[in-house]
């Protein structure tokens, strides 16, 4: 009797181990698909584009000759947009998150706003392009300019920033707030000195990730009329502009092979910028975490 049970147990344990092993393999496979895809992408791009990573790529304007073509106007356009978008979307996004988390009463209206914001975070980007075209380009008559593009992209990233900032604020322990109130602080003092510093790493990560999304977007900017060939840098908010993804798209649709390699080089620059932004998100997070 005893003998029999042990054998059965043994078999069951073996079976469990086998299942465990299979699942482990399965999950490893899931993880590696992403990594392998990324590796293949990066390798093929680097092989194609490496020889075009040269000063001209950053210093020259687009050209009909691949040997001379650069993406100066597109890089500068992307960076200008980023520099304007970051403060605007930070102020409005974090402001909205603070209001919703700290001030707003938890009633039906708030829930309705909340639902809207979550929905907006998932709306396809081309829809924001149409919105931007209607509001900024036509209604505010800002024309097809850098400022229209920036404001449209701000709208695009706002919901994402609001939601992630809200999560960060929610994650601050109630004890911190209670301690602050117990010391006689009022609401704003509590929010600005107890809650926000503690939530800042999460908020910044959210903002930077949202910016990374914006910098790779093409569709809404094509909609509001970002240009493809541009041989000057925007000198005012109402100047026309171009961004990196648009330049890359143009090069990749050319018939000549050299332009495809040039596009690969452009993709490398874009990827490097994205990595740089993600890296700075990590740095900022670590820096703020130490201070708390």
């Amino acid at each position: 009797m005893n003998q029999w049970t042990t054998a059965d147990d043994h078999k069951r344990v073996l079976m469990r181990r086998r299942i465990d092993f299979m699942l482990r393999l399965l999950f490893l496979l899931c993880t590696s698909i992403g990594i392998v895809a990324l590796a293949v992408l990066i390798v093929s791009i680097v092989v194609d584009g490496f020889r075009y990573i040269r000063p001209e790529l950053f210093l020259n304007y687009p050209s009909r000759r691949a040997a001379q073509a650069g993406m100066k106007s597109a890089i500068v356009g992307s960076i200008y947009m980023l520099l304007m978008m970051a403060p605007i979307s930070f102020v409005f996004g974090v402001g909205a998150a603070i209001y919703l988390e700290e001030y707003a009463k938890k009633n039906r209206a708030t829930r309705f706003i909340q639902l809207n914001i979550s929905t907006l975070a998932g709306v396809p980007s081309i829809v924001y392009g149409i919105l931007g075209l209607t509001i900024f380009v036509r209604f505010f008559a800002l024309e097809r300019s850098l400022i229209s593009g920036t404001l449209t992209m701000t709208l695009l990233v706002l919901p994402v920033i609001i939601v992630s900032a809200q999560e960060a604020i929610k994650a601050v322990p109630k004890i911190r707030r209670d301690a602050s109130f117990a010391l006689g602080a009022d609401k704003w003092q509590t929010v600005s000195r107890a809650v926000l510093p503690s939530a800042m790493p999460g908020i910044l990560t959210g903002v930077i990730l949202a910016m990374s999304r914006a910098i790779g977007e093409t569709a809404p900017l094509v909609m509001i009329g970002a240009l493809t060939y541009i041989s000057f840098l925007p000198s005012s908010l109402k100047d026309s502009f171009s961004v990196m993804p648009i330049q890359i798209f143009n090069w990749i649709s050319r018939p000549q092979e050299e332009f495809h390699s040039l596009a690969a080089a452009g993709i490398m620059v874009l990827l490097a910028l994205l990595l740089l932004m993600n890296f700075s998100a990590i740095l900022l997070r670590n820096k703020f975490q130490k201070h708390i």
Partner: protein
Amino acid sequence: MNSRTRIRLQAGLVIALLLLAVISACANNATNEGATPSPTDTDSPAETAQLSGQIEIDGSSTVFPIMEAISEEFNKEQPNIKAPIGVSGTGGGFKRFCTGEIAISNASRPIKDEEKTSCQEKGIEFMDLAVAYDGLSVVVSKENDFVDHLKIDELTKIFGSENTAKTWKDVRPEWPAEKILIFSPGADSGTFDYFNEVILDKKGLRSDEAVSLSEDDNTLVQGVAGSKYGIGYFGFAYYEENADKLKIVPIDGGKGPITPSRDTIKDGSYSPLSRPLFIYVNKKEYGRPEVRAFVDFAMDNVPTLAEEVGYIPLPDEKYAEQKAKLK
């Protein structure tokens, strides 16, 4: 607490409004500076006088490389004139052209009647200038060893929606009974519009599972190159760059099979699939010295520049005809 919250909210709103006001004020100032053409000598030719200002150009992605080359060269002579170029497609370009937003519209087909009407409604007069030829090239895979040439009615049968040939055997009895795979530019492109007009009699492309559409000609190249029984068409430059992967099909337009080449497209013998590419110029805008300088420069230099980016220049006398339209 509640009233305090409200006050803060109001303060926030005021600040936001102020911000918006400042932004739009800055923006307005900026345009005023930018848009004013400098009062340089208008009667001396463009080569000498330095002009400034901005010329808005938009439209077809097919014509884009030509205009990019022109704008690039023009900027060497006139560094203060900004001539950026957008790619909204031929239709999108005409839409902006007929609201007066842009001075020059690039088009890979002539303007349509309804587009003409909407231009007229806005009181916009224009000049149409042919700048180069493109030969729509019909191609099959390198592995395809039976197609030697195609007649127009055979093309219609392969691509058309009526009486469609499903297999190559339906086209000519001696060809294999293998399913034809179609690779065509999408319905929004000027390339399709042209093909639709001269081959399909405006009846549209067949629509079944054998058809793959793409707005990206490089995708079409890969599609045809990779399928033994596939057939597709696109601009000549895309064939030229991929001649090692594709087999070009000579087209019989009634005078025997003609292979598209720089010569047959230029002298018009590759008919009817060689098409002219255009720029449309707003007449009122042409009155601006910087636009005039740009368009004149374009027409003087387009033969060499178009050829450099993969298109075929018109015969010299045709260019003279186009230039005669300028006034």
